[in-house]
C-alpha cells in the first residue's frame, strides 16, 4: 500500500477523514474532524480527493448499454416539458393529444422568444399540425383555439413566463406575451376546480403595481387556454394568479400560481 501518511498533518489520523467520507464515524469523531476542517480549511481538498474514488467507481461497471430508443424517448419528453414542468410520463398519442400538441407548440415559442427559432422549430410546428390532422379534430373548437395560438408563435419580441404551482392547488404552464399582437396566451394544466363564487384571477406586476388582467376557470379536465388582451401591463416582469371572490377588486386571495420572466 502506498504511503499515505505524509498527505495529512500528524494530528489527524487519515483514516478519520476516510471514515468521515464513508460516514462511519461516531458523533464524537465527527466533531473532531469538523473542528479540524474548520481550523484547516485547506484540508477540504483532502475530503474531495477521498470522494473521488467513489465518484468514479461506477465507471468500471460492465459494458451494458441502454437501448437506442431511450435517447429518443428522453428527448421527446424534454421537448414536451420545455414549456411545463411536470413529472415524467410516457408519451401518449390518443387522449389529450391536442393539448400536448399545444404545449409542445408553445414550448417552441419559448425557443423562438429566446432566439432559437430555427429549423427544428419549423419542423416541430409542422409535426404539431400533422398531429392535429391525424387526431381528426380540425373542425372543432379546440382546433380553432389551437390555430389561433399557432398563428402567434412566430412573432418577434415574444416574452415568456414559466408559471409554477405555488400551493398544490393550481396548475402549471406558461404565459406567452405577444406584444406585436397586443395579446398574451395563457396555457395551464392540472388546475383545480374552484367553488362557486370564486375565480382564478391573473395579475401582472410592474414595479409596485399589480394590474388585473383576466379571470378564468379551468375546463373539466383542469386545462386553461386563454388569450388575454395586453393593456397597460406589457412591461410586466412577474405574473401571479390568485384565487379570488368574483366581486373582489384587489388581489386579496391566496396565490395559486406565479411566474417571472
Amino acid at each position, binding site marked *: *500500500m*502506498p504511503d*499515505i501518511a505524509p498527505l495529512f498533518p500528524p494530528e489527524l489520523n*487519515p*483514516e478519520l477523514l*476516510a*471514515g*468521515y*467520507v*464513508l*460516514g*462511519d464515524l461516531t458523533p464524537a469523531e465527527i466533531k473532531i474532524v469538523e473542528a479540524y476542517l474548520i481550523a484547516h480549511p485547506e484540508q477540504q*481538498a483532502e*475530503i*474531495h*480527493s*477521498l*470522494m*473521488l*474514488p*467513489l*465518484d*468514479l*467507481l*461506477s*465507471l*468500471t*461497471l*460492465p*459494458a*451494458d*448499454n*441502454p*437501448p437506442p430508443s*431511450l*435517447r429518443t*424517448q*428522453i*428527448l421527446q*419528453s*424534454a*421537448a414536451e*416539458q*420545455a414549456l411545463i*414542468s411536470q413529472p*415524467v410520463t410516457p408519451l401518449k398519442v390518443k387522449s389529450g393529444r391536442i393539448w400536448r400538441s399545444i404545449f409542445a407548440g408553445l414550448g417552441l415559442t*419559448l*425557443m423562438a422568444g*429566446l*432566439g*432559437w427559432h430555427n429549423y*427544428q422549430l419549423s419542423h416541430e410546428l409542422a409535426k404539431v399540425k400533422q398531429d392535429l390532422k391525424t387526431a381528426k379534430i380540425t373542425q372543432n373548437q379546440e382546433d380553432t383555439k389551437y390555430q389561433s395560438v399557432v398563428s402567434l408563435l412566430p412573432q418577434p419580441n415574444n416574452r415568456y413566463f414559466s408559471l409554477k404551482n405555488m400551493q398544490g392547488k393550481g396548475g402549471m404552464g406558461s404565459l406567452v406575451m405577444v406584444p406585436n399582437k397586443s395579446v398574451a396566451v395563457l396555457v395551464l394544466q392540472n388546475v383545480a376546480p374552484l367553488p362557486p363564487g370564486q375565480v382564478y384571477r391573473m395579475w401582472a406586476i410592474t414595479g409596485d403595481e399589480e394590474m388585473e388582467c383576466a379571470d378564468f376557470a379551468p375546463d373539466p379536465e383542469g386545462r386553461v387556454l386563454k388569450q388575454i388582451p395586453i393593456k397597460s401591463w406589457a412591461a410586466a416582469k412577474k405574473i401571479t394568479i390568485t384565487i379570488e371572490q368574483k366581486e373582489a377588486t384587489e388581489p386579496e386571495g391566496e396565490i395559486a400560481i406565479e411566474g417571472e420572466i
Partner: protein
Amino acid sequence: MLFPVFSGSFKSMLTDESDLQVLTALRQGDTNALGIIYDRYGTAVYRLALKIMANTTEAEDLTQEVFLAFWRGMEKYDVDQGTLVIFLLTITRSRALNRIKQQSSQHNLSQRVGNYLPIAHSNPGIEAATLTELRERMSFALKELPDNQKQVLEMGYYQGKSQSEIAQELDLPLGTVKTRSRQGLLKLRQFLQDLVD
C-alpha cells in the same frame, strides 16, 4: 460509434463544444444540447442505474428520470462546482437508492450514505481527462485493491448499506468493516492522487 460515452474527451465528443458550452445551450432551451449530454454520459448513467436497480426496465426509467430532472432543474448544477459526469452519477446513485428504499420500505438510505453528499466538486484534473482514461485508471486501482476491501466499498456504494449492515451480512466485526473500507478508500485515493493534485 458503439460506446460514445467512453470514446472521447470531455471537451470534444460528438461536437467540439465543451460541457460548459453545451450547458449554456441547454439553459437556453436547446433540446439538442440535452441529446449531446446524453450521448456523452447517458451510458455511464444507465450502467450505474442498472447496477443498483438490477433491472433493465428500472434502469431505463431511472436514466430518463435523471436526464429529465437535470433538464428541468438546471439551476441546481453549478459548473464551477464540478464535472458534469460526476454530478450526473451522484444524482443517479441517490435516486436509485431512494427508489430501492421506497420499494423495500427500509429506513432512509440517504442517512446512511455517509458524508458522500450529492454535490459535485471542482476538479480540473478530472475535467482534463477523458472518460476512457478515468475508467482505465479506476479499473487499475480496483484491481490493486484487496478483494475484501473492494467488497465492502462496493456494498456501501451500490447497495447503500451501512457498515453495520455490511458487518452483519458478512458476519464480520464492525471494526473490521470500518478498517477495510477506510483503507480501501485511502488506497484508491492514492492511485488517483495525480488527478487531484
